[in-house]
């Protein structure tokens, strides 16, 4: 089987083969620059180049001379060709949508969740109560030129007038699609079911309208499935047909092309469901960063459209501020030089860090891109608003993070990283540390990384061949990095004692006593486990409550066990220049992140 992912910067191809033992395994991967843009403007060129690399590395033929039926040789004949070809895509800016709702925090938020869950970037959410005047909303809709609009609003049997007003805004704005000036913009209506006839009357003939079940039939319930399915269908039927070369690519693929984040979401949900764990997944790309979470079975996805490591790297600087990036750089660098280097990465997005300092700078920026994306995710992954619920006194005193968020770092079991800067870090410890720093993991959390960036491929494969997808995911894709143990609370920033640890390791027992600011790594290989007795100091929480002692089995990985007592909420990082560099250098050494 061959699977490709057409990303904004590179097209990645993987080859999966059934070996002599009857196992499905990753055989080979290839990549090439994505060619959706000028001068080539045909996505299939990059796909062919990536598959050609597999062909060269594997010494087998997968491509035929290009003809009308497609360039990929199917089905397999002897040693040549492949039985299945599938693809995901986020090239050319991915799927860009606009959504509407009556109340910003209720139906508009449900509509945004449906669009994000389908793998879209939400350019704007227009709501009746978003404080913009009607003409401002109309101007905004006209400027945006989305690929698709999800028109939601009202619960079934609820407001009619406000939903009709939203449709009238759309009609007045006469929005045009981003790609292709000759086709009608796809609009999905997923609002109050009782207004359907009225909506059809207003929008018929002015756009390509599809009506599906309400995303929020009542305040207590969301029903995102029908809208998500309609988005996927329209993505294939309308949007992809307009993108350069996609009509040909769609003809080659055996199953519909999925937006990359949609495919990644599938695999994260499957992992959470299978192991009954709370999972956060992240995919940091060149242009965007996607965050996925499953907490207590509830799936959420967000995309930070302008936080990435190449095209939008300067935007990370703009949003995080220079000081926040500098705090992760373990050497002294003049501010203007750091700015110039980041600017040059933006205009030359495909370049690679050749020197060690360049790598350190990129990994510092990635921490901020991930941190900011995760903040956005926590703000979005919330319980349904508008539902009557009881609050406790502890809610009132909770000053940390986002109220009402579903993301509870203490309850997080597994953090999975993907995307170039995490998957291709020269040392796995670098990925471990980037994720710990960026997400500020708390309590006991396992960490893993996508070995070579193939989770989206496996996500779409799971829809046609779940057994192969699962086997490859476990054996070739998911690299276990180890477990991080991060105490929270106590006297942050002081040198006080925070945690005692008794470890029963495969090679013998070990005791640790951690003070504030300590960062300690213990070897524990992938496949090995260690029994730990964790005794936090008074007021310090490692997962079972302040001061609560407990036993837990910890799983190893390429980085082993990381005991991180640098403090949380927030992490205690010196602000003074020399002290900051010294702290960053100390932590870098503790994990042997870089060559001497």
């Amino acid at each position, binding site marked *: 089987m061959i699977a490709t992912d057409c990303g904004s910067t590179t097209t990645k191809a993987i080859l999966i083969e059934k070996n002599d033992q009857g196992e499905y395994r990753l055989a080979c991967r290839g990549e090439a620059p994505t060619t959706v843009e000028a001068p080539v403007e045909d996505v299939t060129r990059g796909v062919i180049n990536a598959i050609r690399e597999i062909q060269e590395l594997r010494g087998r033929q997968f491509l035929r001379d290009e003809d009308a039926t497609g360039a990929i040789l199917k089905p397999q004949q002897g040693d040549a060709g492949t039985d299945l070809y599938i693809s995901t895509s986020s090239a*050319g800016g991915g799927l860009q949508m606009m959504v509407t709702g009556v109340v910003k925090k209720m139906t508009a938020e449900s509509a945004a969740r449906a669009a994000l869950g389908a793998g879209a970037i939400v350019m704007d959410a227009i709501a009746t109560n978003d404080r913009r005047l009607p003409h401002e909303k109309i101007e905004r809709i006209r400027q945006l030129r989305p690929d698709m609009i999800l028109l939601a609003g009202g619960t079934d049997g609820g407001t009619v007038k406000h939903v009709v007003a939203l449709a009238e805004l759309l009609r007045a704005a006469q929005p045009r699609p981003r790609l292709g000036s000759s086709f009608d913009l796809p609009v999905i209506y997923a609002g109050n079911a009782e207004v359907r006839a009225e909506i059809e009357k207003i929008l018929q003939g002015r756009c390509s309208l599809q009506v599906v079940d309400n995303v929020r039939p009542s305040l207590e319930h969301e029903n995102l499935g029908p809208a998500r399915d309609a988005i996927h269908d329209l993505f294939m039927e309308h949007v992809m047909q307009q993108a350069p070369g996609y009509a040909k690519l769609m003809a080659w693929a055996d199953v519909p092309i999925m937006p990359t984040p949609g495919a990644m979401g599938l695999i994260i949900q499957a992992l959470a469901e299978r192991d009954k764990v709370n999972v956060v997944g992240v995919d940091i790309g060149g242009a965007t960063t996607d965050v996925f979470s499953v907490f207590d079975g509830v799936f959420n996805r967000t995309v930070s459209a*302008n936080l990435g490591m190449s095209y939008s790297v300067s935007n990370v600087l703009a949003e995080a501020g220079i000081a926040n990036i500098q705090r992760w750089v373990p050497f002294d660098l003049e501010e203007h030089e750091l700015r110039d280097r980041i600017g*040059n990465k933006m205009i030359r997005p495909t370049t690679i860090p050749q020197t060690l300092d*360049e790598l350190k700078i990129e990994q510092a920026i990635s921490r901020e891109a991930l941190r900011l994306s995760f903040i956005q995710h926590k703000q979005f992954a919330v319980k349904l608003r508008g539902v009557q619920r009881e609050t406790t006194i502890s809610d009132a005193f909770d000053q940390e993070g986002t109220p009402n968020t579903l993301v509870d770092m203490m309850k997080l079991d597994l953090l999975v990283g993907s995307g170039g800067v995490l998957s291709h870090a020269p040392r796995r410890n670098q990925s471990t540390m980037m994720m710990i720093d960026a997400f500020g993991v708390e309590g006991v959390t396992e960490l893993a990384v996508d070995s070579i960036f193939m989770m989206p491929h496996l996500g779409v494969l799971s829809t046609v061949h779940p057994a192969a997808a699962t086997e490859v995911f476990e054996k070739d894709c998911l690299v276990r990095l180890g477990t991080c143990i991060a105490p929270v609370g106590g006297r942050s920033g002081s040198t006080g004692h925070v945690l005692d640890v008794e470890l029963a390791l495969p090679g013998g027992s070990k005791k640790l006593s951690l003070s504030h600011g300590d960062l300690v790594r213990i070897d524990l290989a992938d496949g090995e486990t260690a029994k730990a007795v964790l005794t936090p100091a008074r007021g310090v929480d490692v997962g079972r409550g302040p001061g609560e002692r407990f036993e837990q089995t910890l799983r190893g990985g390429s980085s082993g066990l990381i005991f991180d007592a640098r403090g949380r909420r927030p992490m205690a990082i010196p602000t003074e220049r020399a002290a900051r560099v010294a702290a960053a250098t100390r932590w870098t050494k503790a994990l042997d992140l870089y060559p001497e």
Partner: protein
Amino acid sequence: MGDAYTPGLTVTRSAVVRKTRRLPLPGEVVVQVGQKVKAADVVARTALPGKVNLVNLANAIGVMPDELSSKLAVAIGAPIAKDQIIAKSTSFFGLFKSIATSPIDGTLESVSEVTGSAVLREPPIPVEVTAYVDGTIVEIIPNEGVIIESRAALVQGIFGLAGEVTAPITVVAKQADQVLDAKDLKPEHEGKIVIGGGRATLAALRRAIELGVSGVVCGGFAYQDVKELLGYDVGVAVTGSEPLATTLVVTEGFGDIAMAKATYDLLASLEGKRASVNGATQIRAGVIRPEVVVPHGDAADAALNGASHGLELGAPVRCIRAPYFGRIGKVSGLPVDLHTMPSETKVRVLEVDFDGAKIVIPRANVEVIEQ
């Protein structure tokens, strides 16, 4: 990975440059195939739909939305003038009258019987597209625009600010690495395209704007200065619409960096010629480079721009990442195996000859100079 290199920026004395000039919405093309045009000539025009105003007429005259159609004083689709009565109602046997007037000149587009709102649209906004470069119309895109072909010298930059200008070139820097400062700019540079050498300072750009210089072309610019100039960070490289009086084209990158000698020499040789310059940059989705186009109508050795020779032995390349950022050399080796860099990254590399010194660099970190 054989294709894993960055297509370069074109710097050439003579090429066939094709420009697609397209309207934002379908409209009228006003030129013919084969027609010769000047940069300032209009080639296509259209009218953008006017701005929309929403007025709740039902509320204004105190009736239910479904009664509104009988209360309109103007037919749907009819023109309206500012302060003209567009709906009225009477009550108590004509004793009380309520009226709604138009806040704009335009047309009454529609009225909703559910919300009671009226859509009032302002008159269409005329839009014209000019040729931008002197040349010949070679293709008409029906109702959308034209393709113009011009034989010209072409210099593509890497980053720019502000949009299209046409003006004569004047060379200010005496050599390719000379920093362009405010003191170098004089009143006689007003309405000119000023060629700097190395970095242009923030003070130089501000002085250029003050003097009414049409454009500045330089090797480098500090990224921090972009923020100082615009008041905000350019987070994603999509530019061209900045409201600056002077268009900026940076040929090499951010920082203190000299203009490539071939670029400087070419621009210097074009002193006094009229150039079409655009700062618009879009690294993603479409790849638009800032540019200096100097049409010369000389067909002699012109080749169609865009034909790249790729990465081959002897090809001139520009390094586009530290530690050799900005240096120009020739490809002297293309090893097949992956190399481990000091960053421990394993990559495909090439060997570059910098005036006799041979250096190994990731293939992704060079740009072929298209000549």
